[in-house]
């Protein structure tokens, strides 16, 4: 389609010209890397107190991504804001007035935001990993050349990206920033981890997007009965993302703007 390029350019202008959305990405970097470093520091100072079993299962790579649990909330906020800004301001009507092909507008908007968050996500992953390993020290740290470590680092960046795209898809459905924040933040911050902590619901929680996707960041084989490996988990998360984007597209196409 000939006009896709200009729609992409416009979406880039929209993203870069609003400070609040860019702040959320900056927050994602600071929170994830900072918290990861802090936790690595705690682990290094208390490692000797751990039980022998925990010491064997210790995963230095995964530990350096510990900041993700909080940092992903900033990525979710970015995903929500970048879409809901159109609706909360009414700009969507001007945008759809200019681009009546709604699918093109949605694709361009999601694509631009995804590329941006992918770049930031990779920066976060690499920075978290190397900063974390440096703090853990040579006795505990892993090396980027170790088996599975590079996959985990790249995977962490992908995880960050997919969680933001998931939020975008949900926001296309819900439209309202309040609604999207109110559902996504508690879900990823609490509900998902509660479900995985309770024995009865643990099996179900394996299929949640964040639980499945975060498998990619572990290098030392975790003691669990998950029916998928790291990339399988990523695929489950990817399926979630595709599903919400599809639902968002149908809502955008069918409903009045």
């Amino acid at each position: 389609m000939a006009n896709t390029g200009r729609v992409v350019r416009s979406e880039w202008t929209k993203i870069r010209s609003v400070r609040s959305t860019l702040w959320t990405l900056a927050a994602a970097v600071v929170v994830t890397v900072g918290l990861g470093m802090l936790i690595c520091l705690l682990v290094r100072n208390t490692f000797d107190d751990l039980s022998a079993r925990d010491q064997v299962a210790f995963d230095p790579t995964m530990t350096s991504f510990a900041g993700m649990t909080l940092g992903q909330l900033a990525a979710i906020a970015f995903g929500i804001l970048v879409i809901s800004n159109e609706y909360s301001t009414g700009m969507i009507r001007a945008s759809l007035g200019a681009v009546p092909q709604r699918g093109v507008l949605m694709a361009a908007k999601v694509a631009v935001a995804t590329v941006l968050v992918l770049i930031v996500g990779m920066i976060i992953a690499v920075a978290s990993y190397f900063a974390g390993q440096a703090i853990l020290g040579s006795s505990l740290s892993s090396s980027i050349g170790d088996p599975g470590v590079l996959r985990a680092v790249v995977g962490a960046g992908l995880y960050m990206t997919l969680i933001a795209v998931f939020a975008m898809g949900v926001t296309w459905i819900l439209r309202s920033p309040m609604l999207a924040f109110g559902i996504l933040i508690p879900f990823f911050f609490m509900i998902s981890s509660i479900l995985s902590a309770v024995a009865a619901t643990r099996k179900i929680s394996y299929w949640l997007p964040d639980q499945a996707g975060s498998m990619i960041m572990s290098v030392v084989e975790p003691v669990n009965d998950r029916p998928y490996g790291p990339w399988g988990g990523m695929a489950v998360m990817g399926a979630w993302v595709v599903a919400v984007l599809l639902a968002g597209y149908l809502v955008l196409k069918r409903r009045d703007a």
Partner: protein
Amino acid sequence: MIEAVGLTKSYGSKTAVYNLSFQVRPGRVTGFLGPNGAGKSTTMRMILGLDTPTGGSVTVAGHPYRKLPNAPRTVGALLDAGAKHGGRSARNHLLSLAQLSGIPASRVHEVLEIVGLREVAGRRSAGFSLGMGQRLGIAAAMLGDPQVLLFDEPVNGLDPEGIRWVRDLMKRLASEGRTVFVSSHLMSEMALTADHLIVIGRGQLMADMPVRDFIVQNSTSFARVRTADAAHQGSLAALLTEAGGQVLPEQDGALKVIGLELPRISDLAYGADVRLWELSPHHASLEEAYMRMTQGAVDFRSSDDPRGAGSGEGMGMGAGMGAGSAMGAGTPGPPPGAQPPPGGYAPHAGYPPHAGHAPLQPGGMPQQPPTYAQPQENAR
């Protein structure tokens, strides 16, 4: 050219627009007039393909909007001046829209110049006044140098100088052969700006005619009569009614007589031996004609006004017409464009404080009787 055929939009059981058919032609300003909640904005959103009609269709330049080959170069619209991210500068706002439409960035500076926002182009639009926001919205509509322009309430929040500027701009755009479709709830504004009027009330077409015809048809004349002795007022009123006139009391004790020539009133008074202190010709304002046309279509709740409760006749009129044009059940209302009976002045009788101060010329200050000012959310 915009063409609507049988356009209908329902939200559940509420009908916002019912069976609306009209054409908006190029080369003139077409005013789209109706009280708040009459369905103007809904119609405009359907024209722009934002809302899908429940029934009927609307085309711009022969195509449904969503199938237009180059929509942003063909149609420009100001729907909601608040539709911008406050954190974005005026320039970036327009730039994003220009890029979206494949319009060169240089055009952004041109339209900023046209609407007089060049000096504040770099400022975040959150700090803009209502009028500046309105100008920014107009700039956005003009980005693509389109042949068809839609403006939803463009003068809202503008100062007199700004209103005049918008008026001149609309006329200039129309004189360049463009199709200009402007909505408003102010008859006085449309009388000055528009060449052609499309009036809707409760989502239905009430009138579709040149402004000049509207003025001729609707500025009914009436007489003000005041008797020297207030005691004779009643008997004279009965006499005039018997002679076929419509008599309504005015606030200051005078009578408002419709449907009788002045000499005939004088003769009748003379025959009954009633002395007159005043017998003067008057014209109803356009605003009044417009309200009379749409009052039945405003809202049921208008009859809740306690000050209106005194007039049985007025109440009957308003409520009756309202019920007749109720569209909730999906039954067709009265034929579009049907003129209300001459008794249409009745609501004013029930609202005396204004009756004595009817503006005498078209384009006078708009009155705000309660029948008109009621907010209405159910048609949204």
